[in-house]
């Protein structure tokens, strides 16, 4: 995991919260832009500024499967809650299946989570934002579907995204059709799409940390060959394995299975 300056997060273990994976905050001292890698999760975020006259803005993200650039001004700040992959419905409800790679801003986000609209007042304190976001997410009821999907999400992470959908369905004791429907309603992505993201993040890590060649990394990550790994890097990162951008932010996508290594 590699995190940028000005970024802090607290990872929650499953024992600490069934819904919150992490609470994070970020601050940019200078205007610029940064590349965000897709992690397949939904976040609820308040974006504000060190200038207390700026009115905070609510942001709700759908499960991301594509890299995207965020542009910012000096003093921009964010505080957000990252939900566990199988808890996207907390923010999107029944619309979850249709919001892949979408971001709701301002009034659109307030319509999704009207309980949080009251946070968008100039000068609001960060600790109040943090408390309100966590309380809102924690207050949403757990569903048996989310719990069942969570078991398969866990298997996907343990296997580094290398399980075929048929194997995951067999382990879950259901059909592949059923498992995909379950994922569509809880994660907001197909099983394959989510597993591909986990595989991509692990491959990235193997390239950077395993001490071998690109073809070693492709093999261990479970790609058929190096060309398949290159294709995944282009698709999820917008770069090629031999040219990974310097200073790339590699998020902790272990599903909060363990806790924060940096802590």
């Amino acid at each position: 995991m590699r995190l940028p300056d000005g970024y802090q997060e607290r990872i929650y273990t499953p024992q600490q919260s069934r819904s919150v994976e992490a609470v994070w905050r970020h601050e940019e001292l200078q205007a610029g832009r940064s590349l965000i890698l897709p992690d397949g999760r939904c976040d609820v975020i308040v974006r504000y500024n060190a200038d207390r006259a700026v009115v905070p803005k609510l942001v709700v993200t759908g499960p991301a499967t594509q890299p995207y650039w965020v542009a910012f001004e000096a003093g921009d700040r964010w505080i957000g809650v990252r939900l566990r992959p199988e808890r996207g419905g907390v923010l999107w409800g029944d619309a979850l299946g249709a919001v892949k790679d979408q971001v709701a801003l301002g009034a659109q986000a307030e319509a999704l989570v009207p309980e949080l609209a009251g946070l968008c007042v100039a000068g609001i304190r960060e600790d109040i934002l943090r408390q309100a976001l966590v309380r809102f997410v924690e207050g949403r009821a757990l569903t048996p579907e989310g719990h069942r999907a969570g078991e398969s999400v866990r298997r996907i992470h343990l296997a580094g995204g290398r399980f075929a959908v048929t194997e995951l369905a067999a382990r879950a004791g259901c059909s592949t059709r059923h498992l995909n429907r379950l994922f569509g309603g809880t994660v907001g992505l197909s099983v394959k799409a989510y597993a591909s993201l986990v595989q991509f993040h692990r491959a990235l890590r193997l390239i950077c940390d395993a001490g071998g060649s690109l073809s070693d990394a492709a093999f261990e990550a479970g790609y058929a060959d190096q060309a398949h790994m290159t294709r995944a890097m282009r698709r999820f990162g917008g770069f090629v394995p031999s040219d990974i951008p310097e200073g790339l932010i590699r998020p902790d996508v272990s599903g909060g299975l363990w806790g924060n290594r940096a802590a």
Partner: protein
Amino acid sequence: MKLGYTIIYVKNVPETVAFYEAAFGLTQRFMHESTLYAEMETGDTVLSFSAEEVIELDGLAFAPNEKSAIPAGWEICFVTEDVAAAFEKALAAGCSPVSKPHGVPWGQTISYVRDLNGCLVEIATPMNLEG
């Protein structure tokens, strides 16, 4: 270099330790306060259990041990003079039978069960190398 540990990754370490105590008569040597790692009293080569969660920290990946899946292609083998009694004790503690005690041409009595996590465990008489 010498073989130091056999470490089995499991979903729940305390549950697995309790199961191995009941099913195979082992005793716990050590449990980390986080309950994510434990060692059994097995002499110089330690049998340990580690929580699956910790692997993603190091970029490892594996097929997790589960009763509903095909077991991985390796086993733990416990050696005893009374295989029949040990086999019954293992079943009573919740192991699933795979192969009941039987003689093999080279003189051993062997049997197989699967543990609470679906791992393959053999229970056999000692091999008589002089025979």
